């Protein structure tokens, strides 16, 4: 399946998707050393975002979250790409400064955790095992 959205940070990456149905705060929500989701109220708590295509509706929380994305990449624990339904400045600025391909305006209900997802500019394509 192919979907077109808006390119927020130009780039290409293919990886296994990790999907959260809830907004993510990178400050306090993700361990910057390991990429583990530590937010108590998260539906993907305990999972690791490192090397995954991270899919979630939008960002939330402190603006310091932008810097956490940079920290994650420096530690080799950042996501391969980010897909949002509707992006906001905290995650967008973080993706730009940390060089993480990012696209928004995507119907994220079409993507499931474990799908192989490719982000390329404004385009998202996905393959589902067994489908």
């Amino acid at each position, binding site marked *: 399946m192919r979907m077109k959205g*808006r390119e*927020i*940070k*130009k780039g290409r990456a293919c990886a296994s998707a990790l999907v959260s149905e809830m907004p993510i705060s990178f400050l306090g929500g993700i361990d*910057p050393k390991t990429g583990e989701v530590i937010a108590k109220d998260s539906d993907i708590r305990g999972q690791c975002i490192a090397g995954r295509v991270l899919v979630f509706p939008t960002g939330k929380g402190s*603006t*310091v979250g*932008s*810097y*956490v994305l*940079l*920290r994650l990449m*420096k530690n080799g624990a950042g996501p391969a790409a980010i897909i949002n339904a509707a*992006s*906001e*400045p*905290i995650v*967008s*600025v973080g993706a*730009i*400064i940390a060089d993480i391909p990012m696209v928004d305006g995507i119907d994220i209900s079409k993507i499931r955790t474990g799908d192989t997802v490719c982000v390329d500019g404004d385009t998202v394509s996905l393959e589902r095992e067994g489908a």
Partner: protein
Amino acid sequence: MMLTKDEQAIFDGESGEASQKAMEILAALRKIYGAESLVPVSSVQVAGVSYKNLGEAGRDFIAWWSEHGAKVRSFSTLNPAGIDLKRWKQLGFSKDFSERQKEVVSLYESLGIVPTCTCTPYEIGNTPKFGDHIAWSESSAVSFANSYMGARTNREGGPSALAAAIIGKTPCYGYHLDKNRGPSISFDVKADVASEADFGALGFATGAHAKDAVPLFYGLRPMRQTHFKQLGAAMAASGAVALYHVEKQTPDIRCRGCGEALEKICIESLDDAYSRLNTGGDKVDFVSLGCPHASLEEMREIAGHLKGKRVSVPTWITTSIGTRALSDAYGYLKAIESTGARVVTDTCMVVSPIEEFGYGTVAANSAKGCYYMQSWCGVETRFGDVHQCLDAAISGSWRK
């Protein structure tokens, strides 16, 4: 929605990696907010300075721009840091924190930003004129610039203000546009609002109600500059107000009676705001004045009240380097510091690591300051006007 030819060239990397990243940030914000274009800015106020909030991740972010040779194109000033950059040792800030903080400030300085470290850039010469497009962060300064000065800015974050400074432009949406600057909620103030603390309490009460609307106030007596400062700072803390109007006092209502169709919300009393900002006991451990940073007028008033007295609890008046220097020239500094009170620059109680000092109750004349000291710094507060606070500084206890 296309970038201009010059903007596209920067976006494509023709002016180097730092400008490219800054343009990528502005282009993304433009998409997110649906801005038609980028507009040149005459002035920028950059927040994201206190190491307490930035941490190592934030330091890395600022260092990236410095390492890539970024330089600002617009006149840019800096928000407060977590320490007094000169007097941190005698004031009791830890060496480790202070070293890291000083590095962050010098990284900003290397980008061409004047390291003013004040939340009142309008007191030290960053004074855009009526109608100017600017990109300011620091919510109290944003409110002051939009409302008192009639300049035009959104509530920028640290990175978006920095990107605007490096490119010299900002996405044209929100408060840059006429259509978003008219009043959208109105308050008829029946309560007696006289002191700067009263204006802070009024802002605390109305900000929570207004959220991100544009309030229009009726019924306020002629206000001093410090009253505007306190009203706006409090509304930006309890709500997200970036612009407000005061009937016959603020400059940016060009339409006659344009708020008249709005239902007037009556403010009868400030009692609830005062009780929520007064959580502390009668024993005061610390007195904090100068949030937002004290003006020359306030320094003069404080000096007049304290003259010939002694303070019995630690008392800090936070201000800018510029205002401190003027106070020194006119004798206010000596009048204040000879009582044992300290005039502290570059920082404020909210962004400094005061929780490390272990104070139980802090007295302050700033509603914004009390609100954030309660929620971020875990201290209890006493809230009243400058004279009540100074009396508490002298006696060590709070009197109503």
